[in-house]
């Protein structure tokens, strides 16, 4: 930390201050220093970039860029700000993609949504937004959504025209004498989900892959700005339906930080408990999906069977099985009736009775090992360079887990250890997912026991302690929060105005974005058979990919 602070001292900054335990927050005086600074940062050992997030201050005429740099190894992070003029012609800055490869798509996203031009970016094309937003920047505060949407028929026509144009032209540049071709892997493909990979291939061999994303773009970051602080949770949880609790926890933490509210112990433990149940239900899908992509649906079906019991618990607690809306700023939304723990106990029993079977048949499956070993190998250095997180990072032996690095909710009081896997192949990612699942179930057991004891001794009151009051109007401020989501790190950057009733800006940084960036890198030179395998092993969800 000290070295990092010293490094910042050598540059002209408006301020350099400590923020939380592991962060330094700094604002660069001039954008001209950026390249020099990030080069020095990388030398210092801060090797990952989490995201690039512009905030559009319309009244001040400023486009503020936020860079979030992370050091996965030594747990020291830098939140770097720099101001740009917000006029479209002057809104430009040097790209850092050549130094931090993980910036590539994040800069493309900032360009597509805010019109920030990144000079010397190797591939500055639109990403995520659909064709009717071409040359429009939807997340700018002065963008007129009503006018845009009043013209829906023309917008759809524009999308169709663009599609037909690409259909006619996409193979024009190929050598007619070769067997090269372009395959569309998605968006309506048995294994793809709503994502499209333009697979440039020669027979079975892949030459390159260009992912085309945005098929489930809901402009969540914009929708959140239309809602109040409590209502925003329903947009936040739709980051991905499979693990919705932890994304709400992240958002609620950011709001609580700005409102300066401390939540009760009971709410903290409930966030752990619910969060792990959601993680478990997501991991069940991920494990099944991995085998589904190799043409074997049995594990997916078995996991569905067990997962239902965990969803039963969520239903008894919140009334909903998937989109629970169960966590809100100030605590958790509902009180807990202790009989609900019976449902949870049923789920845990079901898990314990079936986990050995799954391990014997699928985790130790010789054909799976034959197939997935040594395919899609990621080294620890690549994990750092591309800012990967969650099980993908841990499968390559990188000790990163935000529950331990930067404990939130009640994770600090838990008995928790890093679990990692050496090797970094698709098989290791599957193994990692399975071990992570088992760890989560252990956490659920710990949390359940703790709550039961505390309630019995009268320390916690399950029907009164679940919420503290959070004011409806928040002061001017900003906060970031990070949570270990099922798929990896989710970083939220919340900005509020004076007496705000709605968030001014919420940046959602989601892990699948970085993981999808890796597809081209991992699949070049492999065969078509490896696409579903590697895609499945990266544990990608299109919900948080597009947002």
């Amino acid at each position, binding site marked *: 930390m000290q070295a990092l602070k010293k490094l910042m001292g050598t540059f002209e900054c408006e301020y350099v201050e400590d923020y939380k335990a592991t962060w330094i927050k700094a604002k660069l005086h001039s954008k001209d220093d950026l390249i020099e600074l990030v080069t020095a940062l990388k030398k210092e050992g801060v090797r990952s970039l989490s995201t690039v997030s512009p905030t559009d201050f319309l009244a001040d005429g400023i486009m503020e860029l936020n860079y979030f740099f992370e050091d996965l190894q030594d747990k020291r992070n830098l939140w770097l700000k720099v101001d740009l003029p917000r006029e479209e012609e002057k809104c430009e800055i040097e790209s850092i993609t050549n130094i931090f490869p993980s910036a590539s798509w994040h800069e493309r996203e900032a360009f597509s949504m805010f019109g920030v031009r990144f000079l010397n970016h190797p591939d500055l094309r639109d990403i995520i937004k659909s064709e009717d937003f071409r040359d429009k920047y939807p997340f700018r505060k002065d963008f007129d959504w009503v006018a845009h949407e009043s013209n829906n028929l023309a917008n759809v026509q524009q999308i169709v025209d663009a599609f037909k144009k690409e259909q006619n032209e996409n193979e024009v540049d190929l050598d007619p004498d070769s067997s090269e071709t372009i*395959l569309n892997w998605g968006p309506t493909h048995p294994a793809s989900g709503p994502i499209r990979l333009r697979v440039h291939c020669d027979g079975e061999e892949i030459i390159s892959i260009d992912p085309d994303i945005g098929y489930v773009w809901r402009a969540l970051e914009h929708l959140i700005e239309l809602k109040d602080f409590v209502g925003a949770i329903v947009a936040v949880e739709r980051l991905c339906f499979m693990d919705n609790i932890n994304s709400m926890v992240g958002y609620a933490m950011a709001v609580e930080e700005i409102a300066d509210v401390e939540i009760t112990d009971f709410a903290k433990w409930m966030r752990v408990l619910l969060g792990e149940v959601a993680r478990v239900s997501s991991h069940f899908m991920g494990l099944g999906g991995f085998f*589904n992509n190799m*043409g074997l*649906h*049995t594990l997916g079906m078995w996991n569905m069977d067990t997962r239902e019991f965990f969803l039963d618990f969520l239903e008894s607690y919140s009334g909903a099985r998937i989109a629970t809306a169960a966590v809100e700023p100030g605590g958790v939304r509902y009180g807990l009736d202790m009989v609900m723990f019976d449902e949870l106990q049923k789920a845990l029993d079901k898990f314990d009775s079936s986990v050995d079977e799954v391990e014997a048949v699928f985790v130790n499956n010789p054909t799976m090992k*034959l197939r997935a070993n040594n395919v899609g190998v990621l080294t620890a250095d690549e994990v750092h360079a591309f800012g990967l997180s969650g099980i993908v990072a841990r499968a390559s032996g990188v000790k990163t887990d935000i529950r331990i690095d930067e404990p939130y909710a009640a994770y600090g009081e838990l008995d928790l250890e890093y679990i990692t896997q050496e090797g970094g192949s698709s098989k290791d990612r599957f193994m990692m997912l399975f071990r992570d699942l088992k760890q989560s179930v252990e956490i659920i057991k710990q949390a359940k026991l703790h709550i039961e004891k505390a309630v019995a001794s009268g320390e916690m009151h399950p029907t009164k302690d679940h919420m503290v009051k959070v004011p409806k109007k928040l002061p001017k401020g900003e906060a970031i929060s990070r949570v270990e989501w099922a798929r990896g790190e989710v970083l939220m950057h919340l900005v509020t105005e004076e007496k705000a009733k709605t968030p001014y800006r919420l940046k959602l940084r989601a892990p699948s974005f970085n993981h999808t960036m890796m597809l081209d890198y991992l699949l070049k030179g492999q065969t078509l058979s490896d696409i*579903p395998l590697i895609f499945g092993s990266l544990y990608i969800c299109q919900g948080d990919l597009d947002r």
Partner: protein
Amino acid sequence: MSDLIFNAFVFPGLLYVLVWTVGLFWFFRKFMAALHKRVGPSFNGKGGSYQTLFDLSKLLTKESITPDGVNPYLFSTMPLLAVIFAMLPAAFIPWSSGFVVVDSTYGLLALVVLIGIEPFLLFLTGFGSNNKYSFLGGIRILTQSISMETSFLLAALSPAVLFSTMNLTSIVEQSSWFSFIVLFPGFVLYFIALLGLLEQPPFNIPDAEQEIVYGFYTEYSGTNYFLLQLTMFVEFMAVFAGAATLFLGAYKGVFFDSYFFFFMKMILIAIVMMTLRAATPRITLSQMLTFSWKYMVPLALVNIAWVLFAKSLWFMGA
């Protein structure tokens, strides 16, 4: 003449094939459902037994789409040819004592050749579809059948070598518990090669839906798709019946000989195939090639040597 019509349209011809397809399809779905811990078809008929009948008749009434830019003759005749060729082996199978439509000295050869033609017809369906995925599927099916048929033929030859005849009836008549044990390695090889020929896991490479969207099936719908599904199930029948005839003594049973035992043997092979299907992911094309040429073919040759050795030891006097 009336015998011939009966053979062609009732048993072991069209009607038998349809009933087998509907029945086996339903059995596969129910059996697979149990392995998957789910229910399977359950609404129509007892245990959902009408469901496949409805599904297949639905396919017949659906619009058959012929895509733009394909040769309609190639596209639509291939599924029909594929069914007919898949039905032919049934004529050479001794279904019960004394019942065989064509009692040929070259029965075994006919069986192997007719089963071996099938992949080429399916390749042509993929080739005729004018679709990149179908074409890739077609190429894969050729690659796979060429490498699997070698060991399939060698494994199928082992009973012929042992009993010095290619007549299927006389192979069945000469078989015994002891010959079953001698031929058991051959049976295992035949079964593995059968998985490759029928595109069953772990060798379901040509119609891998996650990779190439069902391969040669991609463009087919309605009646043509029905015919291709029918082809697959009829091929199951031919190959299972081949296995039962060559290695398991066909209709021979305990206490009495009957078609019933033949049927049970076929279902037994189907059950083993389904169980493998529920527990084995797909391997890649290159892994299949390595497996076939590095292990299967040499082992099949060793098996022939073993059968010859066993023959000289125990079967020469008989």
